[in-house]
């Protein structure tokens, strides 16, 4: 791993196997720079909301529109949770969009639909998990770099999705599935509940469990983590498994939203997810990251999309704005980092 700043801190922890990653992480998360960046990010989000409100006072901050925005953020949000884990562990996953496509197709074949909604859901989750684990095994035990292993999955998962579906759009006729996932619970759409649940579980997993601390340790310095007694290979495989499982959940959401499974689902999810994770403040080199930042990152892009549509503006300007936001966020991140390295 090329991570520079974290190595010395971690190395001091080798005499005590379990807590070192935590010792390394704790002062930083409570520390000043993280909060400033997150506050800045939330500021951007609020600013965008303000712009939306000013340009469309009657249509933007309505309950219906907020609900629509969150529903649209749900699938990519869940994928981004998995991506956050992968990137924190020092890897990258280019296959998420293709796995979403494959899961969505597999769970909507006529055979799966004939077994009812429960099997459809299980099928979506299993396919996602299995693809993720294959990624993980190839990377950890097959020693293929993440970029290449997931690139292979990127190609072959979508290929298999096309094969299974015959490149057709498979409309869901199973009404039990659509009624539940397109419905609402306590007045809030089920998809939004799912998004909240995945984020909550992800946050606890990352910040309050050994698993999360190990993920940070592996991403910070894999060799040091290994010396500290962490089974790095197994851990890496599991992290990609989580990312795959998230894709399976996202596939359920996409199928619910579009009432169909298609091999074209999840196009460019990998890019959107990586963008959201990066502007959320997770280091692409691994070892540090924030799920709340990722959530804000996802919301920024969703709000941006909504503002442009509500004001009937062309998508080309929107893409420019998207690029500017990514660059600005990363610049902010790197100057912060440089300043901190100089200080220590």
């Amino acid at each position, binding site marked *: 791993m090329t991570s520079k700043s974290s190595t010395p801190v971690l190395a001091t922890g080798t005499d005590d196997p379990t807590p070192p990653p935590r010792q390394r992480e704790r002062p930083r998360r409570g520390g000043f720079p993280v909060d400033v960046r997150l506050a800045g990010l939330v500021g951007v989000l609020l600013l965008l909301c303000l712009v939306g409100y000013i340009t469309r006072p009657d249509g933007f901050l309505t309950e219906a529109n907020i609900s629509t925005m969150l529903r649209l953020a749900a699938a990519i949000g869940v994928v981004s949770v998995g991506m956050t884990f992968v990137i924190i562990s020092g890897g990258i996953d280019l296959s998420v969009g293709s796995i979403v496509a494959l899961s969505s197709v597999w769970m909507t074949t006529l055979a799966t639909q004939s077994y009812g909604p429960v099997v459809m859901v299980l099928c979506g989750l299993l396919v996602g998990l299995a693809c993720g684990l294959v990624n993980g095994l190839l990377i950890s035990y097959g020693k293929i770099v993440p970029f290449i292993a997931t690139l292979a999955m990127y190609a072959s998962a979508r290929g298999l999705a096309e094969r299974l579906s015959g490149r057709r759009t498979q409309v869901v006729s199973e009404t039990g599935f659509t009624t539940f996932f397109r419905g609402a619970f306590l007045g809030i759409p089920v998809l939004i509940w799912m998004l909240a649940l995945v984020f909550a579980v992800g946050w606890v997993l990352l910040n309050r469990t050994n698993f999360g601390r190990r993920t940070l340790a592996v991403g910070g310095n894999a060799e040091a983590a290994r010396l500290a007694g962490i089974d790095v290979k197994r851990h890496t495989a599991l992290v990609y498994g989580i990312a795959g499982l998230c894709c399976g959940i996202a596939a359920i959401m996409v199928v619910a939203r579009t009432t169909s499974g298609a*091999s*074209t689902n999840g196009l460019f999810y990998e890019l959107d997810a990586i963008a959201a994770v990066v502007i959320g403040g997770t280091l692409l080199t691994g070892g540090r990251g924030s799920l709340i930042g990722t959530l804000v990152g996802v919301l920024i892009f969703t709000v941006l999309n909504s503002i442009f549509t509500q004001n009937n503006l062309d998508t080309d300007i929107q893409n420019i704005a998207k690029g500017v936001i990514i660059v600005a966020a990363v610049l902010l991140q790197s100057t912060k980092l440089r300043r901190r390295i100089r200080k220590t």
Partner: protein
Amino acid sequence: MPSLDRRRFLWGTTALGATAVLAGCTSNEAPQAGASNAAVAGASGANSQPGKAVTIGFSAPAADHGWMAAMTKNAKAQAGQFSDVTLKATEGTNDVNQQIAQVETLINDKVDVLVILPFDGKALTEVGRQATDAGIQVVNVDRIFDTPLAYRAWIGGDNYRMGVNAGNYIAAQMKAKNISSPVIGEVAGIDSLPLTQERSKGFKDALARAGFSVGPRVSAQFTPESGEQQTANLLQGASKLDALWNHDDDQGIGVLAAIDGAGRKDFIMVGGAGSRNMMNLIKADSGVVKATVLYSPSMASSAIALARMLGQAKGIGDLAEHEIPALITTYSAVVSKENVDSYLDVGFDS
């Protein structure tokens, strides 16, 4: 160790079981075999009599969406209809170099007529010329070559008229309902493609003739997912909407899901391309979908029929011309409840 073995056994069994379940979920075979649903040209008239044997080479892009899949399927079905036609179809590809190589192979195979639906008309022009120079008659389908030197005949759709007819239909409906200043929305396809620009221009021009204009407009990616996302946002921005034109019935599944999700019934929707799914909805007449404007993949069937006639040096029976015309533009008919029954045969599975 025993506990580890047991754990491994349990995990192994679970994994095997999961694999078995997943493997059982891959089939897409309908319980009862559905009717064959390819659009083929009628088998009547003097031209339908078997004649000289013709070998037709066929090359098309990958069948990666319903419309393109129907193009290949129709071409094959039409060829199967003729006892005197041998079809040599190549595997569809979206790689231009690959398609050029495929066409070159067909040229070397000395087929009598070539039917080419290029992934990119400009990029395939040169190989179309090569074929023509080698004495093979080329039928260019839909995406036109840069020069007539590269094809003997062209058959394709009319994107501009698709927009015009959608606009005319919506304008007529608005006038019939006495809506003086309607809000008319548009869900376009990929905006950077010339075909989308032509469709939008036709739509705009037709509405302008009626004194209307296009209101909220979004562009999707021809996929159900993008259709859902863009339409959900569009509906949020347009609290009042009287009509909506969606360029493409493949993405229309997502567009309808968004309309359903928003619980909106206050406007009429017109589709584009003519999928079986949309035609069934038009026929049922229970939702917002009232019509769809054709850009029918039946043109692929016609292209094979044309190729056969070229190979046998025949003309089109009812025309005075001795030869097959060089350019044939299909008509983007409006399919509505009144005439949907006569168009169900050209509807394609999205």
